[in-house]
């Protein structure tokens, strides 16, 4: 995987790519160490119960996963996955939250099931198998939303079934759930889902405040006087998204995090079967 990604990048990007791979490897190693630590601690716990120590290590894993999902590898702003729902459902903050929660539910369930089946699914048919699993959970979420939040169903419309082809979910299945234990995968799903929801909420808030002059449907004092329609229309979505990614890149640089815009800026890189083969260039 590391080699593939590097070969895809142009020469000028190769250096930063190498840095990314290194940090990724370091991260994975760290995780592996943590896992073994967990195992050791839990063994110790069964021998002579020392509950507080175990708790703190579990809390540490949780905290790390959350930090990774929301900040270091934020699926929308850092990995640039799932651009379609990000742009389409953020005209209002409440829609953004609804979309985020629906995607999070699917993400947790599909990650868990795929991780449970990771040794059973043959490598050759894994993508169709993942898609089937994801599609089942999307159907379930669709029915739940229709039954309990019909207003949300109305406003999300076509984008609710389109969670199936959301790159974040397939991307996490491929990148994480197919290689890790169920509990860790579920945690990763939760963390990524929270990261997705946070980014959507951020965008939804900005677009609703500027475009409609309200927040969660409540009119704001000054902004509602003359709302800037541009921000609730399609062009505004592209513009706000671009500015948010620019801000995320700026902050990443400030904190010496590698700037990563997918496979040579391609948002489809994570799920793309060509990733690394260079066919699309």
């Amino acid at each position, binding site marked *: 995987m590391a080699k593939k990604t590097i070969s895809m990048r142009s020469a000028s990007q190769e250096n930063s790519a190498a840095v990314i791979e290194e940090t990724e490897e370091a991260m994975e190693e760290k995780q592996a160490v943590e896992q073994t630590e967990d195992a050791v601690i839990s063994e110790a716990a069964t021998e002579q119960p020392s509950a507080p120590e175990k708790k703190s290590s579990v809390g540490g894993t949780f905290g790390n996963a959350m930090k990774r999902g929301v900040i270091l590898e934020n699926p929308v702003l850092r990995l640039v996955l799932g651009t379609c729902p990000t742009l*389409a459902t953020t005209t209002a903050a409440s829609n953004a939250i609804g979309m985020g929660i629906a995607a999070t539910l699917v993400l947790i369930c599909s990650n868990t099931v795929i991780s449970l089946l990771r040794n059973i699914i043959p490598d050759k048919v894994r993508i169709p198998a993942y898609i089937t699993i994801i*599609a089942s959970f999307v159907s379930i979420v*669709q029915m739940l939303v229709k039954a309990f939040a019909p207003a949300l169903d109305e406003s999300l419309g076509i984008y609710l079934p*389109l969670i*199936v082809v959301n*790159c974040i979910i397939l991307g996490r299945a491929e990148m994480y759930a197919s290689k890790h234990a169920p509990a860790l995968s579920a945690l990763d799903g939760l963390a990524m889902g929270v990261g997705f929801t946070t980014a959507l909420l951020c965008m939804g808030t900005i677009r609703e405040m500027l475009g409609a002059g309200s927040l969660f449907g409540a009119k704001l004092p000054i902004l509602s006087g003359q709302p800037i329609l541009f921000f609730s229309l399609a062009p505004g979505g592209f513009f706000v998204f*671009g500015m948010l990614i620019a801000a995320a*890149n700026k902050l990443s640089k400030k904190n010496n995090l590698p700037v990563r815009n997918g496979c040579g*800026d391609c948002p489809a890189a994570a799920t793309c079967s*060509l990733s690394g083969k260079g066919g699309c260039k």
Partner: protein
Amino acid sequence: MNMLRMVVTIILAGILTNNYVLSKFLGICPFLGVSKKLDTAMGMSAAVIFVMVLSTAVTYPIQRFVLEALGLEYLQTIVFILIIAALVQLVEIVLKKYIPALHASLGVYLPLITTNCAVLGCAILVTEDYSSAVYGFGEGYLYALSCAFGSGLGFLVAMAIFAGVRKRMEFCDIPETLKGLPITLVAASLVAMSFLGFAGVVHM
């Protein structure tokens, strides 16, 4: 005559007013990913038009004669995505065997299309917009196919324009922070704004 006018209207709407990429945000990933050069953009768009029309041609009758007939509408998402995934695989195999020249030019884009939301989005949208319950099967099928074709053409037009814009941007002096994806998105915003000018040109 009336039907012909409707078909032309649907195709024009797909290109100008209801452009999938620029007004409905469907298929953004390939729009941003493979629009760096005009020829790759054209190859991708051609593959999208092909798969979109083909998948609509298969999913529309299935919605009418299997899902609706048996009361299984809730299985729409899972059935449609599986059909699209299988179709893409099938097309790839058939092209490889019988039309290697076409496979050489379209082949690399085909695997990318399975996860292209424009294809699934189109298949689902036409069953709602041109449902056979309202138009009858024959007429609805015709409208659904023209909608798929028109939306595909819209994708092609958006890709072609955007590839041109990006080519011009390559030699521009762009602020460090905006380099890469951010400036691409701002450019997309401007292209989308120009398409807003078409609003109201085509009345459905």
